[in-house]
């Protein structure tokens, strides 16, 4: 086992990984940027190294500084978390070159799955279902012919892409040229690579993904599915497992396809095969592989009964994964809501500020993976994810009810969050019926700015008298020791 691991990430996932380290008796090194000097993940680590300025390029994306920090603190491994450099093959290779262990798959696996077009070709060869379409086309005429063969509507996608950039839905031939031009321009700008691929557009698509896990000794199994169809701005906000769309037979089939996909690139450690699922035809198509731990890994942990992060570390340290496919079965139902600092009624735009209040829900089956606490600052430099609220219960109905209560119990003041919005989503008949497709939020559920309720106005008014301007109370208590606060001086001082 490692003696010390550097976590090349921030926020909730850095803390999640550090907990796993502590439980394995491994010491932890945090890294931080200027903006994160007082961040929770820095407090949580055994030691912390400052990387640089707040912009990711100067800190969390700076390969040299990260490796330097690991060497300097005598760490023997680096866990990349998700995002940032987690799917960067060059980073994985650089880590290994520095005689450090990269906690994740091999650089070759990352590279093989990193390109949408190339990975799709690989999967076709391996017999994994892919969306009907073509890769490697260049001329407009080629695309036109392909589109006709596939049948409209078609989807144009950046080969190197992600996050919806360079992606266009084309409904008829007359729209094709403009779509190709603008998509390749956007792809070039975003990824430095203008290659495009074309495929059938699946309108009522569900996003279903399979967690795979393997060791470096050739063992690899899947840990069932996650349904992640509830998205906004092409980003997941709610994930769950099991999916109501899968029968046991379909689950076994798609699971086997995921294992095949992963084995094709000699995959080890934690990974996820994403599929597009067409609920009308019950067809599934390989979309891409995420060659890292996913944000939504907790729902799998709760339903499959495994600590994925601990196993990531153990596998990286050379241990065998001792389980066979038959050792796992799904128990109960788990749902994750991503608590974002964003204004759902204002186009889901980010919200920043200091957390004036932060109270997490608790109780049986309620898990909060959080990167923040009261008094911490949410800045505009990074992802708006404050925390992940994950619930598990005996079945889906009970999990929905538990999530509804937990969302209500979660109190965040100082930034606008999507906590209210997610209550609406969770309570919606479409969600309950498993009908939410990947464009459902933006098509059906756009939140509107609402007038504050009467009791909110009354409570605020009352607070002026009881909390803010209670001058009699204030002068009375002025020289008393405050019984609730450990220290008499105002808070917020930092040495």
């Amino acid at each position, binding site marked *: 086992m490692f003696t010390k691991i550097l976590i090349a990430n921030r926020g909730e996932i850095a803390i999640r990984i550090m907990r796993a380290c502590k439980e394995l008796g491994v010491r932890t090194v945090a890294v931080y940027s200027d903006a994160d000097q007082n961040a929770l993940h820095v407090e949580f680590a055994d030691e912390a190294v400052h990387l640089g300025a707040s912009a990711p390029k100067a800190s969390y994306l700076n390969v040299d500084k990260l490796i330097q920090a690991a060497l300097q603190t005598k760490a023997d491994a680096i866990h990349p978390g998700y995002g940032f450099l987690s799917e960067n093959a060059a980073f994985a290779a650089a880590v290994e070159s520095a005689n450090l262990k990269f906690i994740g798959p091999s650089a070759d696996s990352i590279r093989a799955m990193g390109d949408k077009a190339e990975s799709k070709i690989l999967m076709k060869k391996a017999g994994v279902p892919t969306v009907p379409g073509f890769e490697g086309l260049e001329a407009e005429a080629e695309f036109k012919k392909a589109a006709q063969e596939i049948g409209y509507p078609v989807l144009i996608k950046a080969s190197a892409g992600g996050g919806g950039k360079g992606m266009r839905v084309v409904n008829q031939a007359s729209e094709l040229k403009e779509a190709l031009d603008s998509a390749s321009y956007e792809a070039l700008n975003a990824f430095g690579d203008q290659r495009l691929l074309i495929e059938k557009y699946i309108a009522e698509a569900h996003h279903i993904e399979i967690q795979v896990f393997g060791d470096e000794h050739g063992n690899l199994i899947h840990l069932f599915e996650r349904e992640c169809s509830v998205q906004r701005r092409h980003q997941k906000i709610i994930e769950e497992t099991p999916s109501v769309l899968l029968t046991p037979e379909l689950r076994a089939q798609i699971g086997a396809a995921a294992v095949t996909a992963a084995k094709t690139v000699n995959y080890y450690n934690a990974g996820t095969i994403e599929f597009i699922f067409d609920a009308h035809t019950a067809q599934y198509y390989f979309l891409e592989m995420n060659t890292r731990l996913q944000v939504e890994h907790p729902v799998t942990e709760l339903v499959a009964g495994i600590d994925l992060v601990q196993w990531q570390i153990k596998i990286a340290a050379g241990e065998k994964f001792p389980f066979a496919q038959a050792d796992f079965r799904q128990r109960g139902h788990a749902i994750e809501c991503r608590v974002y600092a964003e204004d759902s009624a204002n186009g889901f735009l*980010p919200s920043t500020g200091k957390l004036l209040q932060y109270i997490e829900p608790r109780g049986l089956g309620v898990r909060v993976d959080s990167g923040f606490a009261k008094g911490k600052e949410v800045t505009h430099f990074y992802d708006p994810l404050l925390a992940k609220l994950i619930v598990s219960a005996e079945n889906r109905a009970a999990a929905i009810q538990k999530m509804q209560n937990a969302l209500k119990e979660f109190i965040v003041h100082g930034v606008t969050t999507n906590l209210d919005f997610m209550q609406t989503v969770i309570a919606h008949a479409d969600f309950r019926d498993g009908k939410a497709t990947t464009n459902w939020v933006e098509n059906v559920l756009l939140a509107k700015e609402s007038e504050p309720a009467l009791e909110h106005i009354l409570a*605020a008014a009352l*607070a002026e008298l009881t909390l803010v301007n209670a001058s009699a109370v204030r002068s009375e208590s002025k020289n008393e020791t405050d019984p609730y606060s450990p220290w008499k001086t105002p808070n917020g001082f930092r040495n």
Partner: protein
Amino acid sequence: MKIIFNAHAVEINKSTDGYLAEVGERRYRIEVLSVDKTSGRMDLKISAVGAPALEALVQSAYVSADGAKRWVTINGQTSLLTKTSGAKQRSRQENAGGLTAPMPGQVRGVAVSVGEAVKKGQTLLTLEAMKMEIRIQAAYDGKVKSIHVAPGQTVEREQNLIELEV
């Protein structure tokens, strides 16, 4: 005591058995069961004066203050109220055309200069926050009157970015 939040004026005063509040023409009785300054939590019973006595349930309100801002959460619903002097508030509509920042963030780039003629829909500058890029576009044909920000600068939500004139 008169307090105004957003456009809502509340007259609120201590009464013998709690507080009495007036909003518009309606009056409400508020019984305060507890106030906890550590958490900013108040347990309240609110009932409309004159209405038949309902089985008044306790409502737990969490209130946080930050300058004139008041964050209020009751039963999982959160509102952000702003305490005002009562003068008519500048409506957000008046700033349509995207000349104020729709989100806090950093100015990525400024694509125009003062005096430059711009077309409706033309990108004037780009903002970035939390991995999102937003283009601030001209709402009408016109000329750049002034630019209040520079690339790299951090802006607050609703901060003025650029002024156009027709």
